[in-house]
């Protein structure tokens, strides 16, 4: 990133008039185009300003801001959401810090200098998200949201400094990120039922990676490598039985938090499923290949809304009588089925982009297929598909607006709740729609810029 090639001579600096001549009025066609566009632009800007500043009835938004953000979440439990914001801020900070730290390690290994990204640059990249959050905070009026957002940013900044940690602590960094993410989820949803399972899985995987198995003698090594994850899982299970605390389950989430969490949960659940599908699709066993291909082509041929309907109307009947799944759970299941097919295609693209020599080298070294997958193929392939996965998450985030067709109230659906209230039954329809559109746009735009930036950084695919 810091190597400079031979620089071409810089283009001559133009005076403002010269710039106009060259850029806007180079020839007749260009001049006509410019004039037309300027006229249209001025008109649109004028009307928008009038709408936003003068005519707009933004009271509908300011009074219902909590409704838009958290829907019908019980107001006396909102402290959980504040705690979640802080934990997620810390998780995000540590995650970004660990990723930066890994980049720094690599740079050191290659002998290059590493410069951590500047704060100003980061702010510029996320301008739409920051602007949207500031608008929300200004509309909120009370001090509470300011404190929570400020706290989350501060905590995230502290976590970001984890890039300074020594390289041996990288796995610990990722482990902390995953645990904080899960903790943020569970501080809202409670620790009852199957809540121990994801945490147990994460800790079991981490113990496998962290415990220095290589230093042990063989019989002990196998015992420890099998036993450590089990012990970790058992300990987690025990702890959760003790601290079984109820929370607000995802059936009661609505508004923006439902939109964000629905997308996050679906992508997390769809990733391993899609990965397995992709491996099955590339398998040499024809049965597996055909099964996987049929599934993927079937799912990619139908709209998401039909799958949501299927989840809504058919899933309940497909399970034995007596099992009750809430509407949100069914939509998550349907969304996971849908996204797994797309993730499978993305991962398959990543696997195909890997030179076959990698696999052959692994085989030449006498590694078995599972070992080759785990140590050589998957790390490279998955790193290559990160931008596409972010793109899929953005797509899911936008598709969550379909949830209101099956009766769940997410960010777009809160509009209907607002317009059923006595004060806003006949007014402010345009304002709420603009607010919802801007909300989606601000978040999706930031994420898509990040994904484009990641794509350039990782040097993935040109198109």
């Amino acid at each position, binding site marked *: 990133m810091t190597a400079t090639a031979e620089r071409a001579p810089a283009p001559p600096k133009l005076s403002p008039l010269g710039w106009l001549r060259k850029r806007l009025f180079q020839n007749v066609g260009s001049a006509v185009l410019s004039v037309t566009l300027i006229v249209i632009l001025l008109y649109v800007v004028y009307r928008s300003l009038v709408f936003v500043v003068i005519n707009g009835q933004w009271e509908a938004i300011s*009074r*219902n801001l*909590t*409704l838009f953000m958290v*829907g*019908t*979440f*019980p*107001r006396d439990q909102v402290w959980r959401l504040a705690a979640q914001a802080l934990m997620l801020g810390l998780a995000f900070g540590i995650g970004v810090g660990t990723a930066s730290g890994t980049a720094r390690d690599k740079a050191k290994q290659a002998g290059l200098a590493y410069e951590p990204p500047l704060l100003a640059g980061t702010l510029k990249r996320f301008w739409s998200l920051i602007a949207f959050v500031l608008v929300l905070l200004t509309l909120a009026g009370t001090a509470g949201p300011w404190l929570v957002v400020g706290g989350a940013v501060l905590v995230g900044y502290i976590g970001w400094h984890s890039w300074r940690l020594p390289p041996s602590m990288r796995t610990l960094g990722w482990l902390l990120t995953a645990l904080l993410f899960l903790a943020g989820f569970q501080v809202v*949803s*409670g620790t*009852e*039922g*199957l*809540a121990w*399972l994801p945490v147990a899985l994460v800790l079991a995987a981490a113990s496998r990676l962290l415990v220095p198995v290589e230093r042990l003698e*063989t*019989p002990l090594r*196998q*015992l420890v490598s*099998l*036993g450590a994850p*089990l012990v970790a*899982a*058992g300990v987690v*299970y025990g702890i959760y*039985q003790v601290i079984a605390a*109820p*929370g*607000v*389950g*995802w*059936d*009661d989430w609505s508004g923006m938090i439902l939109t964000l969490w629905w997308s996050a949960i679906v992508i997390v659940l769809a990733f391993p499923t899609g990965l397995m599908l992709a491996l099955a699709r590339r398998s040499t066993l024809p049965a597996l290949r055909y099964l996987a291909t049929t599934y993927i082509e079937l799912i990619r041929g139908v709209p998401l809304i039909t799958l949501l309907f299927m989840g*809504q*109307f058919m899933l*309940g*009947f497909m399970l034995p*009588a*007596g*099992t*009750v*799944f*809430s*509407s949100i*759970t069914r939509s998550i299941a349907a969304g996971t089925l849908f996204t797994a097919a797309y993730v499978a295609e993305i991962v398959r693209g990543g696997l195909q982009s890997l030179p076959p020599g990698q696999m052959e080298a692994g085989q030449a070294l006498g590694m078995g297929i599972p070992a080759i997958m785990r140590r050589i193929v998957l790390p490279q392939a998955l790193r290559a598909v990160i931008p596409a996965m972010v793109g899929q998450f953005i797509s899911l985030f936008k598709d969550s607006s379909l949830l209101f*067709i*099956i*009766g769940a*109230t997410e960010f777009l659906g809160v*509009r*209907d*709740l607002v*317009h*059923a*209230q*006595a004060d806003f*039954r*006949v007014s402010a*329809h345009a304002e709420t729609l603009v607010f919802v559109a801007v909300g989606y746009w601000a978040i999706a735009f930031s994420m898509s810029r990040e994904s484009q930036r990641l794509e350039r950084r990782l040097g993935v695919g040109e198109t």
Partner: protein
Amino acid sequence: MNRSKLLVALAALTLVFAACTDDGGGDTTTTGVDGGGGAEEGGTLAAVQDRGELNCGVNDVLPGFGIVDEEGNYSGFDVDLCRAIAAAVLGDADAVNYVPVNVETRFTALQSGEIDVLSRNTTATATRDGQEGLTFVFTTFYDGQGIMVPASSGFTVFEDLQDANFCVLTGTTTELNLNAVFSDRGISFNPVGFEDSAELQQAYEAGQCEAWTSDRSQLASFKFSIEEAGGEAQFIMEEIMSKEPLGPAVLDGDSEWLQVVNWTIQNLVLAWEFGLTSENIGSYSGEESRVLNFIGDGGYDPGLGLATDVNVTVIEAVGNYQEIYERHIEPLGIPLAGSLNDLWTNGGLMYAQPY
């Protein structure tokens, strides 16, 4: 080496099995929605009391019947019926888990056991009773379908609307009735179906449809809010297109639960008949034997599986039918006195069976 692997694997398996025996079952993070809801024979009353919360399917976008305020609290006529049932079964009118359902999901929610009772301005018809596997409880609101047009249009009868665009909400009996009535009279029309009232209202006010057809109570409430906000004057046509008896519904096959819900609702009307309100029921000092039985004096128990003083609890928490109506429906501009929903002694249709 192979043997030790096998031993470790066996030990692991036994550990895992031991860990998994005491599983809570059901779903991970839902707030206690356990199995055994409506899909099985009976047992809903016990399940609700076990759970400590009533799952009630309601509307969240219909003014007067079920809406959500800025704080996320549900209120409305149908919402108060849920509260009454919760007060009767659990002793606490606030122990309700409101599940917002729309026209497509309302019946499946009941069929799959996600909700225990559906209280969402649903019209009772034979088709729904039969095909959807539900049973409708006491009719709580007698309504009819009507047509609203802008007053300036001057239309007064259905024939004036030949070939016109009608705004309707899809998936309700509204569409079916519109078809039935207009086809029978040979009047052609164009129904423009919307999914939610907000868009429908915008289309109506913009003139994309000339007429709006829906239950007259809904038309009255929108007429009120449109005129209140300074919009054009509206006119609801005299002729009533259909009967729309609205009431709660439960799933087939659980007569104990059906009776509990049915009588809880009817007792709201009975309390009104007896003149008992949320204020005076606690301090009733009269000697009428029927009223004394009603408030459970002397341990009178009709054997429904509820407490003897259940009516006192319910009426104190929620009020009688008149109070509920006046709280939610009268502000919409639909007075109780003289309407179909008045007490039978005043010429209306509210006639509760004796206790």
